[in-house]
């Protein structure tokens, strides 16, 4: 076929593409977007199907049969989960104005410029070979139509006669025109997307046309085709999966790999996430895209079988799609196939170059320029041009790198091999992204460690052996390992040779990558910014408004400065539009002079769209009054928490106090009730006590009054009874008065006395009574004087009370009372013991209580029961103590202790004064 004709047609096709893209942009300019349409969106996703699919699948199928399918089954399966996973990524990216996958990862881990840069480098490493594949496909398909198949592919022509080179240039121009037309805050390229959707239609139509022609034109339907193929053993083997060669393991691994690829390939991220205008489009795309994959794959095996039948072997299997109709003389169909392949290749290159250029610009070059000393990028008047310039250069560089890769590596690996190597590189983003959107604890250090280690293992186990294949390294590098170390063989790391190279790499990289991501994340602590971003990402569905979730960095800035920034980075019109939108949304007539935190955040997010999250952060902070979450604010927050805690503690304390007070009151009340009861008892007892003698006196008086015939003896006896009873009454009344007086105001007449004398006086008073009752009295007093300052009448009263008690309660037979006076350094004391029944332990305190004894009275002999209460009261008023010690059944000992009196003038004289 005439090369000029083909070139003309190719040029015409590219021209049509330009026209469509231009039309799409025009529509967008006038607000009648073509892209706001789920079908356009779903078709644009089909950029997944590149020349690798268009030509490579058939090539793969011709050698490995059905094994080519996992690359498309994976995306089909994961598309089912798009509503879960991808919708979240889309939502996050909309909120954060994410412009690329590098931006996404960097933003998630605390707007890390370093991480975004690393991701960019990995993406470039992974995607450039893929671009090379597309260029190779274009040039191969071109030569397949212009020179005989066997003559093609032998050697590369000089650069300036190389179709691939011109294809690269043309694609670079197209990409620059539609990928970097203007700087948009959302980084969307509507014209580009429309063109890509159109290309998807073209390649599908072309492939189906070839498929239908082969199946129904060359054969009588699929049944016939497969039956003829089955006659050849090698072809029939393609109909099944050979379980022996590890093909099923490949199947599973490749399914998983392609799932990750369709999620994270930069070009897929570009069309699925960045170019998405409406989240709901995912709903249709989630099944339309798999449907597209099904359709474009349904004729792959038939074409492969037909190609094998026609050409006899798989040497040129990559070109069967083109070569079959061409060899059968259907030039038009062959041309259509060529255009289909061209569209598949161009679509991939354009989108990938756009995505990579955004990443290189936003996440690699701009951060470096911003940090470059002396450059002062922020101060420059117009940066829009600079940024677009950087992107244009990046596009050219990326595409030319693809071309150089193609020339450098020669034609050693097949299309599929290079594609899978690319996929495996991209799969390294999976832990950081999937972990990042579902696991808040993932940290920047974890993501970085995992990614770097994963990429290192990837580089060692996949691209490096290719250098050996191309002769750059000795072949022994693969077979024996570097320096003969078998454990380091790139295809059998640590001796693991059960897997084919790609699954082998995938296993090791995901293990190392995911493992380090988790372990390092757990071992490190996220910064405030990381934590905040983690929440914004993981909990994205909890926020209605992206600016609602307050950033941890809080600052204010002059609006003028922010405005200037927006103008510099976005251009005048976009800046005005953005601020107008802000005013409208907040119903403001004019912006305030100083932007609050929300507006600062808004501007930062807008800039993030243009230059990436990390750079935007740096730029905004350069003008914003740095008001990071200062330690004082942290303290303030903590203070608030502490205050709340203090309040609650205070409340707790008050409550406890109240409870204690209540308890006290209750106890007091109880006590009062008890005392009241005792008083009642006392009054009734006293009344009773008063009445008993009164009754006796009255009765006797009556007898004496009514019986004049009484003998003088009788009269004498009655009179003495009356006297006794009267004395008893007097005593009782005196005691009550005593008690009253003691309670009211003690009136003591204290003077230093010798306690021994007081004891002696008291004993003299009671001795006749004791002798009369037959009670033995034992007295022990020290030889030395026991001086104490007392009112001796009162103390005598106490002693008499103790002695009469002792007499009253001593044993009935062999009664004995012991009185013992002692003195020591500080005190003098008198102990009075009896040998009576004693006092039970629980009664020992009670007997001293004022009214208590009144209740416990037994026996006719008992006194008023006030005696001990009065005694203790008196002793206490002398600063002494009155205690009882008793073992029931062995008597009781009452001890009175009084402070010893030491004359201030002559302490010594006391000890030398001898008495008695």
């Amino acid at each position, binding site marked *: 076929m005439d090369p000029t004709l083909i070139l003309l047609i190719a040029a015409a096709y590219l021209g049509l593409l330009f026209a469509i893209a231009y039309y799409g942009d025009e529509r967008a300019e006038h607000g009648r*977007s073509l892209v*706001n349409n789920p079908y356009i969106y779903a078709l644009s996703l089909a950029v997944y199907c590149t020349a690798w699919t268009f030509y490579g699948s058939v090539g793969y199928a011709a050698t490995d049969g*059905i094994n080519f*399918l996992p690359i498309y*089954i994976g995306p*089909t*399966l*994961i*598309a*089912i*989960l798009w*509503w*879960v996973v991808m919708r979240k990524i889309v*939502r996050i990216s*909309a909120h954060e104005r994410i412009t690329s996958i590098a931006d996404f990862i960097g933003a998630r881990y605390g707007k890390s410029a370093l991480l975004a840069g690393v991701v960019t480098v990995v993406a470039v490493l992974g995607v450039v070979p893929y671009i090379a594949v597309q260029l190779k496909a274009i040039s191969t398909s071109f030569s397949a139509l212009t020179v005989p198949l066997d003559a093609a592919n032998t050697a590369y022509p000089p650069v300036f006669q190389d179709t691939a080179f011109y294809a690269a240039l043309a694609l670079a121009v197209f990409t620059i025109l539609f990928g970097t037309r203007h700087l948009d805050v*959302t980084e969307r390229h509507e014209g580009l997307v429309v063109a890509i959707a159109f290309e998807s239609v073209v390649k599908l139509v072309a492939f189906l046309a070839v498929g239908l022609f082969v199946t129904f034109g060359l054969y009588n*339907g*699929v*049944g*016939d085709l*497969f*039956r003829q193929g*089955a006659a050849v053993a090698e072809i*029939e083997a393609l*109909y*099944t*999966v050979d*379980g022996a060669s590890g093909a*099923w*393991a490949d*199947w*599973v691994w490749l*399914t998983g790999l392609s799932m990750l690829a369709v999620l994270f390939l930069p070009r897929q991220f570009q069309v699925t996430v960045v170019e998405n*205008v*409406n*989240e709901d489009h995912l*709903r*249709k795309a*989630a*099944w339309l895209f*798999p*449907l597209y994959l*099904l359709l474009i794959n*349904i004729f792959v*095996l038939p074409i492969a079988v037909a190609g094998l039948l026609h050409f006899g072997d798989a040497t040129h299997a990559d070109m069967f799609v083109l070569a079959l109709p061409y060899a059968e003389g259907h030039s038009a169909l062959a041309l259509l196939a060529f255009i289909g392949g061209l569209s598949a290749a161009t679509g991939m290159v354009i989108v990938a170059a756009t995505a990579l250029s955004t990443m290189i610009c936003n996440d690699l070059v701009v951060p470096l320029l911003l940090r470059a000393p002396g450059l002062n990028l922020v101060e420059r008047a117009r940066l829009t041009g600079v940024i677009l310039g950087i992107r244009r250069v990046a596009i050219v560089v990326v595409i030319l790198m693809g071309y150089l890769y193609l020339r450098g590596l020669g034609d050693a690996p097949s299309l599929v091999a290079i594609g899978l190597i690319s996929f495996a590189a991209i799969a390294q983003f999976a832990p950081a992204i999937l972990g990042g959107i579902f696991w808040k604890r993932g940290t920047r250090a974890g993501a970085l460690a995992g990614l770097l280690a994963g990429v290192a293992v990837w580089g060692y186990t996949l691209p490096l052996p290719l250098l050996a294949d191309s002769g750059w390294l000795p072949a022994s590098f693969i077979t024996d390992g570097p320096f003969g170390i078998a454990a380091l063989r790139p295809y059998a790391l640590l001796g693991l040779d059960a897997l084919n190279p790609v699954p082998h790499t995938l296993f090791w990289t995901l293990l190392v990558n995911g493992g380090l991501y988790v372990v390092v994340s757990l071992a490190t602590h996220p910064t405030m910014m990381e934590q905040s971003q983690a929440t914004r990402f993981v909990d994205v*569905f909890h*926020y*209605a*408004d992206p600016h609602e979730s307050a950033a941890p960095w809080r600052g204010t800035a002059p609006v003028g400065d922010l405005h200037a920034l927006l103008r510099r980075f976005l251009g005048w019109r976009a800046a005005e539009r953005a601020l107008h939108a802000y005013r409208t949304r907040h119903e403001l007539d004019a912006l305030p002079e100083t932007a609050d935190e929300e507006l600062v955040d808004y501007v930062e997010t807008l800039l993030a769209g243009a230059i990436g999250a990390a750079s935007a952060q740096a730029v905004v902070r350069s003008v914003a009054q740095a008001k990071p979450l200062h330690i004082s604010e942290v303290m303030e927050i903590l203070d608030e928490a502490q205050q709340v805690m203090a309040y609650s503690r205070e409340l707790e304390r008050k409550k406890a106090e109240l409870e204690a007070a209540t308890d006290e009151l209750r106890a007091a009340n109880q006590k009062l009730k008890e005392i009241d009861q005792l008083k009642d008892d006392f009054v009734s007892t006293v009344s009773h006590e008063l009445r008993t003698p009164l009754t006796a006196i009255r009765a006797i008086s009556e007898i004496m009054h009514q019986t004049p015939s009484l003998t003088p003896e009788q009269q004498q006896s009655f009179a003495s009874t009356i006297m006794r009873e009267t004395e008893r009454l007097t005593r009782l009344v005196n005691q009550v008065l005593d008690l009253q007086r003691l309670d009211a105001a003690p009136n003591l007449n204290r003077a230093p006395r010798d306690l021994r004398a007081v004891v002696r006086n008291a004993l003299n008073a009671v001795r006749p009574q004791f002798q009369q009752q037959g009670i033995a009295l034992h007295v022990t007093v020290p030889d030395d004087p026991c001086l104490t300052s007392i009112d001796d009448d009162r103390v005598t009263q106490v002693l008499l009370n103790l002695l009469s008690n002792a007499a009253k309660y001593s044993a009935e037979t062999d009664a004995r009372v012991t009185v013992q006076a002692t003195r020591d350094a500080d005190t003098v004391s008198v102990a009075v013991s009896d040998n009576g029944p004693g006092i039970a332990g629980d009664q020992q305190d009670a007997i001293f209580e004022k009214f208590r004894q009144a209740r416990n009275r037994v026996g006719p002999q008992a006194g008023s029961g006030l005696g001990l209460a009065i005694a203790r009261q008196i002793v206490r008023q002398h600063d002494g103590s009155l205690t009882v010690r008793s073992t029931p059944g062995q008597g009781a000992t009452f001890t009175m202790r009084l402070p010893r009196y030491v004359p201030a003038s002559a302490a010594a004289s006391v000890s030398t004064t001898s008495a008695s």
Partner: protein
Amino acid sequence: MDTIELQRWLGVLFVAGCLLLGYPLLTVYSVPATIGGIPVLYAVIFAIWALLIGTSAWLLHRPSASRTSTEPAESDAPRR
């Protein structure tokens, strides 16, 4: 069926798809036989594939699946 419920069903479908289109179930069909002239494995895979697409389309487009009341920010038309 709200969003959460829909997500659960999609999860079930995903797992089912992984099982149906993966090892070891597919080995059953990896036999040198044909259905209507088409190799069994090829036919079965495409049939399951189509079934998955149909089921997920049905799940995603049931009238109740559009209700997303559980999430506040679902209202908007194109984001701009």
